[in-house]
């Protein structure tokens, strides 16, 4: 394998990882407040379709769309739509105390349905399959850092060849880590997720924390959807359910990181690296493996490679459960609604 292919592999891993990093950092925050939001894929869908629709109508309505304006509109739309998703979830589970699992799963179905419905409409409006494109906005979202992205050769490609959202994801993960571990707000938030009755008795507004964190988490997840549409598939609509699969991977990543946003950075890239193995693995190695396993065709191996991220998750889960350190477990009251006067 040449250096160039290896760098291309890592770049692909980082692009892929960015999507699930948004998803899992958002979900880590949400789960730290004790809300198990299984609506991550749905919320990412909402963010994705809103960002696409915003950009589409802006570009169609303007003869000469300004790239950064398009990107800005797209960003705002993604944030607002995913915020709405977070609000729906919070209202149902915190205020009405609905079952969190059911609410989350329903939100996933809802988000996917809404997104694919309007995605289909947008495709129709733009004249048919493969026609929809918001090239101007997408190019602004994907714009690389001038100078730095070329000046240092392979290092530039490795570090500086991504759109701004890829860096934003890392920054958000680091901020989330700082907030959770160094600030009073973070301490209070962790308490809410561990034991809301205790947090309540300590004078913390449990409802407010749950609402705000879930909504902020949802907005971060929505950014993942936007990144998927604008960068990963370059401003088109993918009705194939690829985003939903990534959404679930983001949920798996939350467990993989043992609820630590810092770990989500390298964890997401590792998942991306594993995900792309099937494209970048040297064909000689693949052929040898195929022979060893008795596979008739080398391409059959690809299906096996695609399982790797999930296998890694399972292995990590086993290791974590063996270690049993209390700090690495999920927030103790995850998935349980809190009602103060229950007795």
């Amino acid at each position: 394998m040449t250096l160039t292919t290896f760098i291309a592999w890592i770049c692909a891993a980082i692009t892929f990882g960015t999507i699930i990093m948004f998803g899992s950092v958002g979900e880590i925050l949400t789960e730290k407040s004790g809300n198990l939001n299984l609506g991550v894929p749905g919320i990412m869908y909402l963010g994705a379709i809103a960002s696409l629709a915003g950009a589409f109508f802006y570009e169609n309505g303007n003869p000469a769309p300004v790239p950064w304006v398009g990107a800005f509109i797209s960003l705002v739309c993604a944030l607002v739509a995913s915020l709405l998703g977070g609000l729906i979830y919070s209202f149902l589970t915190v205020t009405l105390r609905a079952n969190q699992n059911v609410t989350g799963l329903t939100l996933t179905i809802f988000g996917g349905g809404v997104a694919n419905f309007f995605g289909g409409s947008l495709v129709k409006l733009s004249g048919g399959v493969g026609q929809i494109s918001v090239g101007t906005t997408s190019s602004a979202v994907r714009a690389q850092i001038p100078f730095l992205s070329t000046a240092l050769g392979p290092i530039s490609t490795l570090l500086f060849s991504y759109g701004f959202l890829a860096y934003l994801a890392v920054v958000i993960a680091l901020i989330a880590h700082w907030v959770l571990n160094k600030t009073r707000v973070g301490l209070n938030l962790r308490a809410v997720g561990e034991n809301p009755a205790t947090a309540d008795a300590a004078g913390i507004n449990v409802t407010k924390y749950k609402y705000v964190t879930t909504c902020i988490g949802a907005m971060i997840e929505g950014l993942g959807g936007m990144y998927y549409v604008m960068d990963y598939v370059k401003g088109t609509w993918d009705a194939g359910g690829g985003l939903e699969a990534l959404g679930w991977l983001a949920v798996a990543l939350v467990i993989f990181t043992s609820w630590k946003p810092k770990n989500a950075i390298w964890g997401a890239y590792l998942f991306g690296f594993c995900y792309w193995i099937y494209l970048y693995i040297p064909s000689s190695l693949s052929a040898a493996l195929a022979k060893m396993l008795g596979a008739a065709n080398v391409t059959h191996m690809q299906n096996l490679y695609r399982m790797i991220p999930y296998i890694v998750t399972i292995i990590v889960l086993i290791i974590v459960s063996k270690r049993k350190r209390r700090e690495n477990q999920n927030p103790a009251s995850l998935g349980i609604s809190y009602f103060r006067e229950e007795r």
Partner: protein
Amino acid sequence: MNESIAVRMDGITKRFGSVIANDRVSMDIRYSEILSILGENGSGKTTLMNMLAGIYYPDEGFLYVNGKEVTITSPHDAFELGIGMIHQHFKLIDVFTAAENIILGMKGEKRTYNIDEVNQKVKEICDRYGFDIDPKMKVYEMSVAQKQTLEIVKILYRGANILILDEPTAVLTPQETEKLFNILRQMRKDGKAIVLITHKLNEVLELSDRVTILRKGQYITTIPTPVANEQILTEAMVGEKVTLDIERPDPVNPQKRLSVKHLTVVNQERIKALDDVSFDVYSGEILGVAGISGCGQKELLEAIAGLQNIESGGSVEYYDKDGNTKELVGVSPREIRNYGVHLSFVPEDRLGMGLVGSMGMTENMMLKDYDKGRSPFLNRSESSKLADEIKSELDVVTPSIDTPVRKLSGGNVQKVLVGREIAAEPAILMTAYAVRGLDINKSYTIYNLLNEQKKKGVAVIYVGEDLDVLMALSDRILVLCAGHVNGVLDARTASKEEIGLRMTNLVKEEA
């Protein structure tokens, strides 16, 4: 005037749905004084104090703190007024350190906090009152007594002058209780107002200056402790005359029923929960099991009932009435039950083991005999007859035998649980914490039930928390200390101090 009034409550009423928890209660709390609030379970002691702590909000009435009328709508308001409450179930986050728990929810000048500064301040408070707490220790590594100390430090750190303790001694050994009382006396000297919610009469008499008594949500009276005694307090609390002595008939014709030898149980954390435990159980006697919580009591009973994996080398032999022996290790729990070995375990949440909360009494009865009869369909009539019997004989308060047991009060749930096991006419009856959280009257009902069984020749194993009761009820007391049998004492001659000492220190081996 150092006995100035800290809190005045005037006509406080609180309802939960149609249930009135507090009915127009008026009382006051003074500085430099320890006030006991005494009442049976469900008399509204904790609810009343929760309204001071901001957990609940009163439906009617007025609150005055330091002479000013106040509304307390959240725990935060309570802190601002210098009121701190230590709840019966500790309000601590297990994965946080002591210091993190202490500053939880506090507002600071900065968004971030410096944990070293907090650690320093915590140390200062500990030194002043003589607490022994490491601020960097995680709560899940602490003993119950340490957790309680942490709760007190937490409240002092926030500058509370009015401290409310909800049944603080329920989980402590006699030695730890004495230590806590000394701390409370020290704080009284400091001018703080201290409220002790309890239903233990001896504590009231030993510690407090005044006693306020609640019954069924209503304020009954306040008595200065010097003029009170157990009889007066009990009658005010229960509203009728009661006899306080637990009867203890002598065992008649005791025969060996159970012989436990070299029993070792390893728990999930790979720690020996029971280590080489050996003892015998006789018919017609009550064997009390004493020990601080989590010392292997649960594992011991479960091992006998066949619910625990036993390390090789251990044996539990059952002797039936004709002197035949049966090895119980390796036998399924159902078969052990069929031999007549019955377990009624009352866990902390009362329902967890033994009863299904969303089922009614009838269905809970059926859990144990669903396999009787040959029809593939369930036979409800037998079970509902039994449920009716238990309801009337044990005076279970429930709208109907089909009301989900989760909706019954704690005492009634326990009666159902114990009643079901007794109805099966056991040869060996094991109960753990059968009176957990019950008030005096209902506790006596349970003691009488156990005594009746004893008289019938049943071997009763009674795991209890209250040493006074254990000593009054049992014939022999087995003391468990960290999974070891630390002596089997004659309950008629043993002293409370000796039992307490054996609960905390291994007498036979290290010491």
